[in-house]
């Protein structure tokens, strides 16, 4: 077996993403695994291992559209439990941001984000929506101020 080469440039990249720098505090205790529902329901998802791979700079494994990180439930149990304030879920989201930077987001996320940026809402208003709202006596949904939204994220 060949010895793996450590690549710390990956960690430096991650440090630049909001919340990514907290990965440095991980001492691999595994508290996150004990409370993680994705770890419970999956054979291969393990937040401690994701943090270890991050610390070792295993970018190829982590930064992919089919990376294990996408199975995170985003439940924040690890954030709640971590004794080191690693905020593992936030590190995982920072890893996802690196996926976005490198153009390897899963298709669903791209589609969802495009809808949000185009309309200001994450759910598309179909013709039946306002009809149903009218039946319920609710006010009609108007377009939101999407121009402001687009301006601030330019």
């Amino acid at each position, binding site marked *: 077996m060949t010895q793996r080469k450590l690549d710390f440039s990956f960690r430096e990249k991650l440090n630049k993403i909001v919340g990514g720098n907290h990965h440095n505090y991980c001492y691999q205790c595994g508290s996150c695994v004990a409370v993680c*529902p*994705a770890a419970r329901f999956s054979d291969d998802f393990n937040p401690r291992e994701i943090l270890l791979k991050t610390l070792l700079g295993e970018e190829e494994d982590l930064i992919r559209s089919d990376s294990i990180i996408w199975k995170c439930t*985003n439940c924040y149990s690890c954030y709640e439990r971590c004794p080191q304030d690693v*905020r593992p879920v936030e590190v995982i989201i920072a890893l996802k*941001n690196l996926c976005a930077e490198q153009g390897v987001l*899963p298709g669903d996320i791209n589609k969802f984000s495009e809808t949000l940026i185009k309309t200001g809402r994450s759910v598309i*208003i179909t013709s039946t*929506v306002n009809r149903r709202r009218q039946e319920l006596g609710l006010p009609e949904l108007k377009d939101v101020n999407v121009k*402001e939204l687009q301006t601030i994220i330019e």
Partner: protein
Amino acid sequence: MAKKISVAPFWGCMIPVKYPQMELSVRKTMEQIDVELVDLDQFTCCPDPIYFKARDKIQWLTIAARNLAVAEEAGQDIVTMCSGCTSTLLEAKFMLAEDSKLKNQVNEKLKKINKEYKGTVKVKHIVVMLRDDVGVQRIKESINRPLIGVKVGIHYGCHLLKPSQIMHIDDADYPSLLENLIQALGATPLTHREKLLCCGKGCMDDEMPLEMTYEVFDSMESVGVDCMGLICPTCFNSFDMGQILIARKMNREFNLPVIYFCQLLGLAQGFAPEEVGLHLHRIKVDRIMEMIGASEKPLEMVA
């Protein structure tokens, strides 16, 4: 006479578009307890704390800060109806308070639209407002058809409570917020082993989300609940539609009505199921209505 509460409702995206029955139940029930909802028309998506945040945290934070600034400008505090919106807005507030450089960076972007996030606005999920500002006593006074004998399986969902460092709402392991509110309606909250399990919606996997949903139902059924009570439209999607999927893919029918808290409140305040939009749910509430002695009005079926 209690002081009138006035707040800006942050409806989010899922509720007004996919589940307007929840909005209906909020509007109807808040009227009964003198909570004035001041609709602001400048809010956008919160934005969502899972998909959009995965794309770009800074963009996510900036859009959230704009929404907060909209409420600050109007001089209104925000009440949220969805745990996801609550999570995004409270986490944004936390991050911007924690890191002044980040706050300046975000405010530089908001300057382009002549807005500024100051940090003064309060954000509360509607059940937190009910507990802290309205109070159990006022809720009880609004009730004329207590849900006596109805056993409610509580599902907290993840984003209302965690991380408690940010949310500051309740003990994340032993919460009592929903138990107390359900009790105020005359119903019996039942605890069950998977009360705090994630609904699974945020996990991008073909099998796992439904397996989690299944476990929650199995847990609730084992203690004999009559319905499920929850506070988040994303969880609702997992459990209402999820029951149909479980019946199809896992061959087990739970047949448990899934009810948003303000719909339960509405039933207890004497509204008919269709007045709080329960006729739009996949699993109907006829049996609950029988239990509280209000079965004479048949449910209108809407395709």
